[in-house]
């Protein structure tokens, strides 16, 4: 009998295996990891072709592109993990132009020694987030760095989308008199992450708000095409995003502290950590600025969407050559909401 023996490749050991240098070496081990993990999880026609790129026909209209690197620590946190976060983050950055996100690309930097089981959990979470959002990951890359030169896994995602005609959404378009809206409670993501940090660890029922907001945005721009600015207040939180709008638009902002939705648990955590919820990160919230006369309608549309039930009008754009963001405090005084100094907490997303 001289029949050729049937190929047998031992499957990737997701139970006990760990990332080693060969997984990024360009050889069989890498090909196997891509095939058994990434191609299966993300399963789509582009990945099935096995090219280093993905070909698609550009849709009519203006296109938008955004990229975002994710280095969150810890990798798994209440309400999510680095996988779904890396999908939501980039979809949101694309959608904030009023765009319909179309495709994602993902790049992984893995640290030697990282458990393959954890990698599978992360990739499957990413794949689920991408399926739920209807935005496929159509190309990607994997690199491995030596132990001690990474921190488990870093993920960079890039997204493209198309902007419907008639929309002109940009951070430099806020005008005095415009209304400022927020889509829900602020600070949830940052507090969920902080609750797990080794030198802080406290118990909380707060979960990260990580979510893809393109559905909410589609409803908003359909109802109020005159929306001027949209942005997700991630690192630096609401306070930072408003300062960015103020600087870009050359206007001031005046918000009311009592109108800003904050969960009591987030307030309590911030209280004992000495943080201000205005600067704590969000991953599933947006700030919108629209003409005053559209504000109530926009608010109603936002509240009708599951990701906007706690939406609120929190203030207005004012004339101010100094571009200060001011806040009427619940206490009755007025103060600046300034740019954040230093950083409140590193590696939040």
């Amino acid at each position, binding site marked *: 009998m001289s029949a050729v023996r049937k190929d047998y490749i031992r499957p990737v050991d997701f139970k006990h295996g760990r990332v080693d240098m060969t997984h990024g070496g360009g050889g069989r081990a890498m090909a196997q990891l891509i095939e058994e993990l990434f191609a299966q999880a993300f399963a789509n026609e582009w990945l099935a072709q096995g090219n280093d790129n993905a070909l698609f026909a550009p849709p009519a209209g203006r296109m938008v592109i955004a990229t975002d690197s994710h280095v969150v620590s810890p990798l798994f946190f209440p309400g999510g993990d680095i996988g779904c976060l890396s999908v939501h983050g980039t979809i949101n950055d694309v959608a904030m132009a009023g765009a319909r996100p179309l495709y994602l690309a993902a790049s992984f930097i893995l640290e030697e020694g990282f458990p393959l089981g954890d990698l599978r959990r992360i990739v499957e979470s990413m794949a689920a987030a991408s399926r739920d959002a209807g935005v496929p990951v159509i190309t990607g890359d994997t690199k491995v760095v030596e132990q001690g030169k990474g921190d488990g896994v870093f993920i960079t995602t890039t997204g493209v989308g198309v902007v419907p005609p008639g929309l002109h959404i940009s951070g430099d378009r806020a005008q005095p008199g415009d209304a400022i809206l927020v889509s829900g409670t602020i600070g949830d993501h940052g507090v969920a992450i902080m609750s797990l940090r080794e*030198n*802080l660890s406290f118990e909380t029922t707060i979960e990260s708000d990580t979510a893809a907001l393109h559905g909410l945005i589609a409803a908003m721009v359909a109802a109020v095409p005159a929306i001027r600015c949209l942005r997700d207040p991630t690192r630096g939180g609401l306070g930072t995003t408003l300062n960015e709008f103020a600087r870009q638009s050359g206007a001031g902002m005046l918000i009311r502290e*009592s109108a800003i939705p904050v969960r*009591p648990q987030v*307030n*309590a955590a911030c*209280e004992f950590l000495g943080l201000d919820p205005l600067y704590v990160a969000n991953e599933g919230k947006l700030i919108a600025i629209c003409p005053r006369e559209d504000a109530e309608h926009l608010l109603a549309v936002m509240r009708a969407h599951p990701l906007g039930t706690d939406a609120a009008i929190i203030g207005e754009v004012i004339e101010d050559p*100094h571009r*200060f963001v*001011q806040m009427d*405090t*619940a*206490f*009755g*005084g*007025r*103060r*600046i909401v*300034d740019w954040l*100094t*230093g950083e409140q907490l590193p590696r939040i997303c």
Partner: protein
Amino acid sequence: MKYIDEFRDGDLARGIAARIGAEARTDRSYHLMEFCGGHTHAISRYGIKDLLPPNVQMIHGPGCPVCVLPIGRIDNAIELATEHAAIVCTYADTIRVPASGGLSLMKAKARGADIRMIYSAADALKIAQDNPQREVVFFAIGFETTTPPTAIVIRQAQALGLTNFSVFCNHVLTPAAITHILESPEVRELGTVPLDGFIGPAHVSTVIGSQPYEYFVEEYQRPVVIAGFEPLDVMQAILMLVRQLNDGRAEVENEFTRAVTREGNQKAKSLVAEVFELRPSFEWRGLGEVPYSALRIKEAYASFDAERRFGIVYRPVADNKACECGAILRGVKKPTDCKVFGTVCTPENPIGSCMVSSEGACAAHYTYGRFKDVAIKAAEAVVE
């Protein structure tokens, strides 16, 4: 938030503000110093000044632990990390205080020094246990509030027999600083700093009690009202001070009865007395050498004293000439009187220590209140 919201109620605040407005006499002014940075922060963050009549003025005191730390002590801490290769652990804001040669602990960290930001003294002890082959130094700063936890970790380190842990002690004392201000020529002889009364420390007083302030009201005839750090505490304390001044009284009153007693925390005080002793003199940024104003580690715990262990030599370093932190800490000047405020000195690139901590007078005004300066300048322009 239970037990928090009650002390931030806007309606109550307006009620107290109305009473202050009604009771403050229009034929005199009220210059009140809040000693603590915690109060400074509350006043700025909640916009308390907006609720006060113009003749009730708040003067920011030196009670910000980061702000009073002299440059030379930060230099010492950097040397511990760079020359002795120690892991230096400290509280957050300390990391950003400018030191000599354009350095800070944060910049030293970026150059490879092992500096760790911690939330509690116990974290430093844990780091020492986890790194038995490394020297671990806790760079301890703060007033009487943070001193007892430092005493505890020193005792714990001794109980655990740790040989790689020590404390670089920079704990300072509130009463000595208040005396120093009241004794300053600007207050005593020149009268250029009118100082009618004090809002007394909140957390410090939970440890030392209200009794130590009785000497000030007696000796200097200035009323002291101890107040909590919530904005309503501050408002209520201002009203109590206005009333004392109207009545010609100078007493220690306690607004913060929910946490402060006359005797303070006996257990904490005895812990501190067991581990620490008075230094004959200590340099404060802005105030200079102040006698008997700081603590050092007693001989019995000498092996945990970083100063003895590493033979630290203190070299005083003068502040940047343009910086007015010294005068600001003594209440002689306001942040806006400083030429570099908001120009070359900002929270991102602090020249002086008052711009570092959110409790510092300059940082608090820059972060929360500087939009008001624009209005003042505009008004001045109209007058001119």
